[in-house]
């Protein structure tokens, strides 16, 4: 029983990190129709930036905020100067976001080397919690709680605010939204920045349990894709359900079938594709 609970919590905390990543990917696609391959870099650079800020200031909160804001700024620059001109042109978007993925991955290796880096847990959550006769690291519980807060916030942003209404309007019909006086181009920049912010958030928050290492960018990009394929591109609910599903599948897969680990993720993905090509919550 304890075993199942511990493994389930491990899967859920990983799933929450994947949700942070995939919600950004999904949001950017939903609003701007851009498949952002640089998303993996935002996650990885977020982790490295967080590490630097943590070493300089010793504050985990500053590391989380500073790194995520810096990555959001990078995202905004990429959107403004490189992606803006290729609105709805898929191939150039793929080239540009691929290009940055490779450049950032190489730059990260130059600066931080090929060895994995470990990030210490924040002091407040360094310990373990004891309940029902077993110990569980509080930091993972904190990630779960934090992720659910972010999910609630995004929901409120999308469904309960004026900005959210503008977003939904631009998704449904961009031209009419423009005609109604909504500043769609500013909205696009904000969305891309927010998406980058969320990916970096995942990178910093995941640092203490997963480490920060070269290749993580490609790894999480792929998992992010699987999450949105299962959940449906452009759907917040899909990112959450898909993220938790992939987190649990990955964790239990690694425990029970270590040599087939990828299959426990890809087999359900193939099944969903066969039944619902647009994902569980995606729109055709």
């Amino acid at each position, binding site marked *: 029983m304890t075993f199942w609970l511990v493994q389930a919590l491990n899967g859920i905390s990983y799933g929450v990190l994947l949700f942070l990543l995939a919600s950004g990917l999904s949001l950017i696609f939903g609003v701007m129709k851009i498949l952002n391959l640089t998303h993996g870099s935002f996650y990885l650079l977020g982790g490295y930036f967080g590490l630097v800020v943590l070493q300089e200031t010793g504050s985990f909160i500053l590391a989380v905020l500073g790194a995520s804001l810096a990555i959001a700024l990078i995202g905004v620059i990429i959107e403004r100067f490189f992606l803006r001109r290729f609105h709805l042109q*898929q*191939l150039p978007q*793929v*080239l*540009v976001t691929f290009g940055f993925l*490779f*450049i950032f991955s190489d730059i990260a290796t130059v600066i931080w080397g090929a060895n994995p880096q470990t990030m210490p847990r924040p002091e407040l959550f360094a310990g373990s919690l004891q309940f029902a006769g077993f110990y569980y690291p509080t930091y993972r519980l904190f990630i779960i709680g934090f992720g659910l807060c972010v999910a609630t916030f995004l929901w409120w942003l999308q469904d309960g605010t004026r900005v959210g209404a503008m977003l939904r309007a631009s998704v449904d019909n961009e031209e009419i939204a423009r005609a109604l006086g909504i500043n769609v181009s500013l909205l696009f920049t904000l969305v891309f920045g927010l998406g980058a912010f969320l990916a970096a958030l995942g990178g910093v928050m995941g640092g203490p349990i997963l480490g920060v290492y070269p290749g993580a960018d490609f790894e999480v990009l792929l998992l992010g894709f699987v999450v949105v394929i299962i959940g449906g*591109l452009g759907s917040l609910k899909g990112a959450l359900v898909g993220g938790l599903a992939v987190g649990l599948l990955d964790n239990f897969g690694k425990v029970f079938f270590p040599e087939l680990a990828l299959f426990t993720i890809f087999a359900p*993905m193939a099944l969903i594709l066969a039944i619902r090509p647009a994902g569980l919550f995606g729109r055709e």
Partner: protein
Amino acid sequence: MSAAGASSSVKSRGSAALLLTILVLAVLPYLLSTYYLGLVIEILIFALFAMSLDLLIGYTGMASLGYAAYFGVAAYAVGLLAMKLHWSVWLALPAALIIVGLVATLFGLLALRTRGSYFLMITLALSQVAWGIAFGWRSLTGGDDGLPNIPRPELAADWPLAGDRSFYFFILLLVGVGVLLLAHVVTSPFGFALRGIRESETRMQALGYNVWRYKLAAFIVAAVFAGLAGALYAYYNRFVSPDYLGVFRSAEVLLMVILGGAGTLIGPAIGAAVIVLLENVISAYTERWLIVIGTIYILVALFAPDGIVGFVRDFHARRAKS
């Protein structure tokens, strides 16, 4: 000059260029050292690889982000068949192409449930499945270490392609056959139907074409040619590793197609030559090839979206006007 005259002069200039290319390729082994001959072999193989992807991107309008899967699967297939079962090239090569065809059918059936960005993501995810198998199934594939020492093909029991020159002609012949077949495919009624699908799926549907079946056929045909390139590359390098199926290789062949110019067969071949040569020149100076090629991706998107062929065409059009 009348329009018909202009087009026939273009055509005769085209065949003259083709003959000249064949002539040059035939005498190259007598002029070049082993190292440079190796570069030409790489260019030939990647040209075929890029041309086959262009059947999807340029002619059918489907971009794949996981195209190296087929290149790599065939490379592993010939490697394993040659090493574990000691099959000759005459058995191993066709068997590898059949295996690639089957894998492409399976992947195509899944990927073609979708379109647009979903299609991009799914092709990438599926190629990572193949990568995961190559990486994880150590007892068969050697995992990260790959399969070293794949034997050079033997045309008959006592006729090994030991020399660089005879191996070069073996590659040239097979790539040549591949390119001719591809050229035949794109100018056949099937090829024109694919172009129709690129322009408007709904219109082709209305004309009575089974669009889905055409797309699946294009997906499989392209993959088999990519497989031919991959199998030849395994024989050339005498080595296969999971990198053959990786994201980087998929992205690289995509760049070759777009850099050269999608929608023409000559474009991707030029793109392949440029990237192979550039990689060899630049890696002599720096290990940061990823930064360089990443920058090329962005520059191509910004300044040469129609590729080198499009650039030359624009230049000619402007000169003709003035």
